[in-house]
């Protein structure tokens, strides 16, 4: 059953349509991520679900009940903010117990449940401290415990790990994924970091300018983007306008064969993931797609090395990313042959 349903959700700030007819159905226990660049309307969407912002049009339902007009404090939603928003004048335990206190629970059971929630995020011994006496990661754990302690219908998280360093962020992502799966809560997570979205989510909704461009499993979004925007955001690196005829696509001097069924004849957009292109010094016989050319730039990133290659037949340059194996293999000016499987050629629809 759908736990959260958004129907045609729309919000303006002034003349700007910040959220534009967003519709989304989230199953019970599902972990969904709204992924998109800064300013695309993720936070506003989340705030409307929480009841902190009122939509101009559209409906929100929670567990089958329409809550569009319900104030935030009656929605039974847990929310974790980027700035953690812990109450600085209350102890960690009081912070966590706050939601239970609002629900009229007596002091004794309140303290017990808050303690249990703190133990769930490995902070059982920290109840008496003030939030300011915790590290950034610990503060976000407390915020998580506080949002979960009253068994909300759904957990909302707005870039909760944005302020943490990379190592800690990865640890917190693992913990969050384990915790949400274990207790089976429905969650909506917001981030602009595609890797974070991949790691955490059952499904990812990619947002652009207030709209959902595509919603699918992380693998499908990453491997089979539907639109130019999604392909670009997923870091394909090569997106061309071309022309299809008899299953072959021409883009400038490049000739690309897609896996069957190929695109219908006419104008098409294609995306080719930079990691799927292989570079070789000599001709590679039997490749489904191959293009000779010259390296124009080589950049060493550490784990990866990227090359730009100008094909001999003219047309757009190719971006190639490969795992660094002992350093940079080709210098600018080097002659190479790029090749890629037909299966890596992704025909876009919009």
């Amino acid at each position, binding site marked *: 059953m759908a736990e959260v349903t958004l129907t045609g959700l729309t919000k303006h700030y002034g003349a700007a349509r910040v959220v534009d007819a967003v519709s989304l159905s989230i199953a019970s226990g599902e972990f969904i991520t709204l992924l998109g660049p800064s300013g695309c309307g993720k936070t506003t969407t989340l705030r409307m679900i929480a009841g902190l912002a009122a939509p101009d049009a559209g409906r929100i339902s929670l567990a089958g009940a329409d809550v569009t007009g319900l104030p935030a404090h009656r929605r039974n939603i847990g929310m974790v903010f980027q700035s953690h*928003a812990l109450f600085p004048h209350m102890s960690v335990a009081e912070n966590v117990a*706050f939601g239970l206190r609002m629900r009229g629970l007596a002091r004794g059971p309140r303290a017990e449940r808050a303690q249990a929630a703190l133990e769930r995020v490995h902070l059982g011994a920290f109840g008496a401290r003030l939030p300011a006496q915790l590290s950034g990661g610990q503060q976000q754990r407390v915020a998580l415990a506080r949002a979960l302690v009253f068994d909300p219908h759904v957990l909302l998280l707005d870039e909760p790990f944005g302020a943490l360093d990379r190592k800690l962020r990865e640890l917190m992502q693992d913990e969050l994924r384990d915790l949400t799966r274990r207790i089976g809560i429905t969650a909506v997570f917001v981030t602009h970091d595609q890797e974070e979205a991949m790691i955490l989510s059952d499904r990812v909704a990619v947002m652009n300018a207030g709209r959902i461009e595509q919603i699918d499993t992380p693998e499908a979004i990453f491997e089979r983007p539907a639109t130019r925007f999604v392909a670009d955001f997923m870091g394909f690196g090569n997106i061309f306008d071309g022309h299809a005829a008899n299953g072959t696509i021409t883009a400038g001097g490049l000739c690309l064969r897609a896996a069957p069924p190929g695109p219908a004849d006419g104008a098409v957009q294609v995306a080719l993931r930079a990691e799927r292109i292989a570079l070789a010094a000599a001709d590679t016989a039997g490749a489904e797609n191959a293009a000779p050319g010259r390296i124009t730039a080589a950049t060493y990133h550490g784990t990866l090395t990227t090359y730009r290659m100008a094909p001999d037949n003219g047309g757009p340059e190719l971006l190639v990313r490969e795992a660094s194996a002992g350093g940079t293999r080709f210098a600018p000016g080097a002659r190479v042959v790029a090749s890629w499987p037909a299966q890596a050629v992704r025909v876009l629809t919009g």
Partner: protein
Amino acid sequence: MRRLLQVVAALVAAFVLAPIVVVVVASFSDGAVPQFPPRTWSLRWYAHAIGEAAFTDAAWNSAWLAVIATLLATPLALAAAFAIVRGRFPGRQALQAFLLAPLFVPAIVISLAILVAMARLGVRDVGLRLVGAHVLVTFPYLVRTIIASLTRFDLGLEEAARTLGAHPLRGFLLVTLPLIRPGVIAGMLFALIVSFDNVSVSLFLTSARTNTLPLAILNYVEYNFDPSVAAISTMLVAVSLAAALLIERAVGLRRVVGG
């Protein structure tokens, strides 16, 4: 350059503090007139001052007046500060300037305005006149400190309280109020001092029978020149200093006086 600044600062402080030091020292004179430094030292003018009904009655009046005016002005100032900081209506800046105006308008103008207004409103009772006037005089100090604390307050905390199930009013009481409390308390202490010290407004509104302490002192020195006035003044300085220390403990004086 730094040294020069320090020297200048020390000179300014000396210039400002010197008269107070003179008064405090002279208050311990034994003779019939204040001496600096006293030839013989004594506390007898303190005893005299405390025994003088004109002073003690006026001191009680001033104390009650300061407390009542502050308690009345505080909720008004809270409401006004909220409207200015949180409201979304045109003219908020203008309203703020208007509410803070008594800080900048010459005291004598305000006093005259209050006198005229009280007469027009038919407020004859001296106590009521004084309370009304002192609410007005203390109000801008409260508005200013409360605006400062509300502006610093993180709205996200109120939103967090709401998502946790707190009615907005309850969120205000449990989260907002405790966090802006130091600012409110500092404003109240300030208001107490401002009311207790006030001369100009009270001067227009008091009667022969109802007097405030600063006016009682003024009256007294018209006809007497003994050290009891210095003794009273020293006690006032001590009280003000205590209040300033309390403000410092609550929020830090700089926040209240500065920006």
